[in-house]
């Protein structure tokens, strides 16, 4: 990642349908984009093909490329589709059913035949190890080494590919897990091994075992993929591959191969990073990132130029919007919330006689009714078409003709069940999805203590620019930016990510009597472990930004609040300042403090971030020539106005310095931007369309 005489950088986002690539010349700021179909059987192939095309098209030599950064949905998909390795789970004797039982409760008490996610490792592949460590870290029973050896040989014989080891209290004392790993390596050297004390060093055995099992389950797949990719890229003359991590930082190939769960959601996270980058480039560090595609709409809050992070994520939910219906991932992950089901969401009349939209989606096949591929139930896209927001003749730049009559019939049927006209039903769908997304965003912002009023939104994805105006109105946002090259926008975000690692240490202590020398030592140790990761990657340690936070709670509570603290508090041993920082975070979240209750520090976190990559981005602003006005069409704006004739412009022909009053439609190949009444559009220095909103009286 260091600055060498290699001006080029490549970002690759391997999505479910498309693989997007960007090539950036960091000296000139010139950007080239490539998009091709993902090759699911061997995702490396599309990357290789795309990279070769980019190089050829731009006449770039592979040696002049400094690094190539990947994001992938491979890990999420492997978990959702359960396409992973033959995996064994090794647990403490007496706890074979840790995954089967999970937490034993129900996420919806009214569904008698409740569906729950299948454990990643089935019961017959879970094995018990005679050993025991206590909560204090003391050893009660040392591991039975003979038993471990015999088990290892059995796993080899039965052709297991991966092993997850999750022993009780290993977050406190990892010795037994390490010993078991050493024995496994001796007896069965080909096994991939994941230790819970390394994957997630936190108390609560189900959540830790679950994540460790997921890591093991995908490890051989991911490692094989990474190895092929590295080999292919090396054959092309590249060095310097990195991977986007779930938390928005960059991982080395070694870290990615060892902890593939840290790649979860790296694709969507890249979109949020791209929005953050865009914000930084235009001097807007706080914004909302909004990405609405065909099957999902995701949002993320960006604060101070970086996306927010959560540790409360679920993967592979069986009920999309039901909290608790997925497998828990207690790792730091870019806080992408799924706020809606995308353009393919199906609309229905429910048992209450109310309109309901999603979470079921028509997906890409059969897709919305208007795709003419056999879909019969109306979707958000069908509604958008009937309302005039989409152009039946210019979808994907005209490559795909839409069946407007079919959409109208389907919407008419739905309307009849609700006692509404087809258009009114379509408007209802548009309103409900938009309002639901706005509400989900609002709740999210409020939970995070962010005042969203007056904020800027960056909207992308195929359907995002259609719905952004109305969300902005509901939330009272000041402006919405529609960047250029929305198709490869996420890939661009990859190039803005920083090389980053984080570590945490569990030291549970009353804050009032915390041994600050010990705290000082544990941070020295953590940063000592982090340093070589950067120097190995060519980043001088004195350029690395260090961040510290402490998870604290009232003593006897079970959950902590993460309190960021300046490093100087620790250097001074300033316990009172730590307590004050805790009070401030707690009061803001819960409206009160617990008088007289002692505060306890639980987890001490250290993060290290390389300097942000120097970024020189000059989006092509030279507009295509010719008249931007393409014509006009009726668009349904509001129930009290009905359909109004609205001008349609070609986004690519907008000239710098223009100001276009809404209502207006701006068409581009991959999306349609809707600028509503009372808003106006201009172009920014990067070629993005900026919609500014003002109050409608």
């Amino acid at each position, binding site marked *: 990642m260091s600055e060498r005489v290699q001006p080029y950088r490549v970002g690759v986002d391997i999505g479910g349908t498309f693989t997007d690539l960007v090539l950036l010349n960091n000296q000139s700021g010139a950007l080239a984009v490539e998009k091709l179909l993902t090759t699911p059987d061997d995702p490396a192939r599309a990357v290789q093909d795309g990279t070769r095309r980019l190089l050829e098209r731009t006449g770039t030599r592979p040696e002049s490329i400094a690094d190539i950064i990947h994001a992938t949905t491979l890990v999420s998909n492997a978990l959702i589709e359960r396409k992973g390795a033959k995996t064994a789970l090794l647990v403490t004797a007496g706890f074979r059913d840790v995954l089967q039982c999970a937490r*034993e409760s129900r996420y919806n008490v*009214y569904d008698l035949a409740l569906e729950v996610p299948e454990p990643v490792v089935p019961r017959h592949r879970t*094995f018990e190890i005679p050993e025991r460590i*206590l909560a204090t870290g003391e050893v009660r029973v040392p591991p039975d080494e003979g038993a471990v050896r015999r088990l290892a040989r059995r796993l080899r014989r039965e052709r297991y590919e991966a092993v997850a080891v999750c022993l009780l209290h290993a977050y406190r004392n990892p010795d037994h897990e390490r010993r078991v790993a050493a024995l496994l390596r001796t007896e069965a050297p080909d096994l991939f091994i994941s230790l819970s004390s390394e994957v997630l060093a936190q108390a609560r055995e189900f959540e830790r075992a679950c994540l460790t099992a997921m890591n093991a389950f995908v490890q051989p797949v991911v490692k094989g993929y990474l190895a092929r990719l590295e080999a292919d890229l090396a054959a092309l003359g590249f060095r310097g591959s990195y991977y986007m991590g779930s938390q928005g930082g960059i991982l080395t190939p070694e870290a990615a191969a060892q902890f593939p769960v840290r790649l979860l959601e790296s694709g969507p996270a890249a979109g949020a990073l791209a929005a953050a980058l865009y914000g930084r480039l235009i001097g807007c560090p706080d914004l909302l990132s909004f990405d609405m595609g065909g099957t999902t709409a995701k949002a993320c809050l960006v604060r101070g130029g970086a996306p927010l992070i959560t540790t409360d994520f679920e993967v592979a939910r069986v009920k999309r919007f039901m909290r608790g219906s997925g497998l828990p991932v207690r790792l730091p992950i870019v806080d992408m919330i799924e706020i809606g089901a995308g353009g393919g969401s199906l609309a229905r009349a429910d048992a209450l*006689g109310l309109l309901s939209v999603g979470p079921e989606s028509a997906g890409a096949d059969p897709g919305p009714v208007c795709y003419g591929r056999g879909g019969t139930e109306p979707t958000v896209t069908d509604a958008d078409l009937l309302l005039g927001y989409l152009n039946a003749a210019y979808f994907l730049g005209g490559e795909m003709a839409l069946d407007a009559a079919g959409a109208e019939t389907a919407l008419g049927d739905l309307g009849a069940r609700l006692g509404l006209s087809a258009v009114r039903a379509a408007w209802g769908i548009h309103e409900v999805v938009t309002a639901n997304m706005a*509400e989900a965003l609002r709740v999210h912002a409020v939970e995070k203590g962010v005042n969203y009023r007056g904020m800027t939104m960056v909207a992308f994805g195929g359907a995002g620019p259609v719905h952004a105006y109305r969300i902005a109105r509901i939330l009272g946002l000041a402006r919405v930016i529609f960047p250029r090259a929305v198709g490869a926008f996420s890939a661009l975000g990859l190039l803005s990510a920083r090389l980053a690692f984080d570590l945490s240490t569990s030291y549970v202590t009353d804050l009032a009597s915390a041994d600050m020398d010990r705290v000082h030592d544990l941070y020295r140790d953590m940063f000592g472990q982090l340093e070589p990761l950067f120097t190995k990657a060519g980043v001088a340690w004195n350029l690395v930004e260090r961040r510290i936070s402490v998870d604290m709670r009232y003593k*006897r509570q079970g959950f902590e609040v993460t309190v960021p603290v300046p490093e100087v508090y620790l250097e001074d041993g300033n316990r009172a300042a730590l307590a004050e920082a805790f009070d401030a975070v707690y009061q803001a979240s819960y409206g009160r403090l617990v008088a007289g209750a002692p505060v306890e520090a639980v987890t001490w976190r250290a993060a290290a971030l390389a300097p942000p990559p120097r970024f020189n981005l000059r989006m092509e602003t030279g507009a295509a020539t010719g008249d931007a006005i393409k014509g006009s069409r009726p668009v349904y704006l509001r129930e009290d106005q009905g359909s109004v004739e609205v001008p349609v412009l070609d986004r690519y022909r907008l000239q710098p310095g223009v100001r276009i009053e809404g209502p207006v439609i701006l068409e581009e190949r991959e999306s349609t931007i809707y600028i509503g009444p009372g808003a106006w559009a201009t172009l920014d220095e990067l070629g993005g369309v900026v919609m500014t909103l003002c109050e409608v009286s």
Partner: protein
Amino acid sequence: MGHDPIALRILWDKLISITQETSAALVRTAFSSVVREGNDYAVVLMDARGNSVAQPWHCPPSFLGTLPITARHLLRRFPPETLRPGDSLVTNDPWLGTGHLPDLTIVTPIFGPRGELVALAGVIAHMADIGGIIDYGGTREVYEEGIRIPMVRLAREGSLDETVLEFIRNNVRVPEDVVGDINAMLAANWVASERVRQLMIEERIEDFTALADEILSRTEGAMREAIRAAPAGVYASEVSLDGLEGSITLRVRVEIAGDTIHVDFAGSSPQNHSSLNSVISYTYAYTAYPLKCLLNPSIPNNEGCYRPITVAAPEGCVLNAKPPAAVMNRNQVGHFIPAAIFSALAEVFPDRVMAHSGSTPVTLEAFAGTGRDGSPYVLLVGFNGGSGAAPGRDGRTSCFPSNMSNTPAEVIELTTPLLVEEKVLIPDSGGPGKFRGGPGQRITIRNLANTPVLHNLVVNRLNHPAQGLLGGRPGRPNRLFLNGRPLRQTRSRLALRPGDAITVEYPGGGGLYPPADRDRDRVERDVRDGLVTPRAAALEYQWERPLKAMPARLPRAQQGGQR
């Protein structure tokens, strides 16, 4: 002014999301593990009259049903015009709501943007201790079971009433946990109040009551329609359970007539001299709950679901006990009501009912001892047996009809000097059926401290295993062991000496439909997973083909493959 179907949908979803946020605030700020790990709490958003309007999807149905009842009692005691912003009301009187003393109900009035009372935030949480004797089953009057807090104003215009708190502190074994949880409950209601106020401003809601009425009448209409679609008639059943003075029988008569349902428990056992007695509010909650599951599971629950359902139980019977009956273990009785209703309606809804659950009733185990730091602790944990099989779905090891989560072994060991020695599923414990009952599990907990620990629980299903329905077979009954020796009583209250270990084998759930109809793949998967032994598979499912490479004895072979 009515909302159209679109606007109403949007506002309704928002109210539900507020309750989810409220419950997250409670869990994250709670002190005792029974709330934060065990899920033994509920939050409900009510209108100013005490009608439930919105709630999360995961809280125990009992509390969701009793909270509005308690709120209406509180409103009669503290009329709306006497309430001020920052006030909160509390009670734990069993006969005013949840049916036993450990559950505190706190209701906080919510004031709108113009300063008028618009709604109520309600929260219930099970306290780690409420005083009294720790003697599940053994109490004979409510006075032995702890402090009975009348309806009082807990907070007045933002300040906690120190007198009330002192009374509580002086009567409980772990005052820090109890007062900590009261603070968490107030934090939850604060979050609910803030969000409702914000919503009213942002959505320009002038009249919250009118909005509530629309939600309730829509729900009520859907519920009545579902009842009308069910075949009218009178359906009866009875179930028996282990009491401390012999079996207790619940007799139920469900009358579906037009768009209403009336449930009568006449003929059920009289109230008894143990703590296994339910009160009418609790009985009501667990009667309405299974009916909602059968009739209209997907619509959000609120007062509208309750209105078409009436419940009667003769005063003085085990489901409508009179004070001063002991009621600590009212769940040991009330949790059987859904099973009785499923039995009564099995032929009416053969494709909807659930077989009886081994996790009925919830068994709360109490451990009271001295922690590693020398301070007293009271640990309440609820582990679960197997749930009953449902159409298309095998039972799991999961709570029903309540919704307790297990407490992680690591959390138990971090907070007490106890050792969770094993927590494993029991082969052949789930009742056979086309859909199999959920497996029971064996849990052994050992006292590692050098001081004795009081262990107390009441188990059920020693003599009355969970029944299968419509041809399904019963699950395995409950068993109890001290240091490996069987204990034959349903009630255990003993001092675990240093090194002693208590084992509970939680019962399996009942099966649904005849086992002969079970899919062969499912039988084989169960055998491979060791949940059903080859012998039982042959016996119950006529399964013959031995699996290739089947270890001779699977469970032992797991111990690192010694054999």
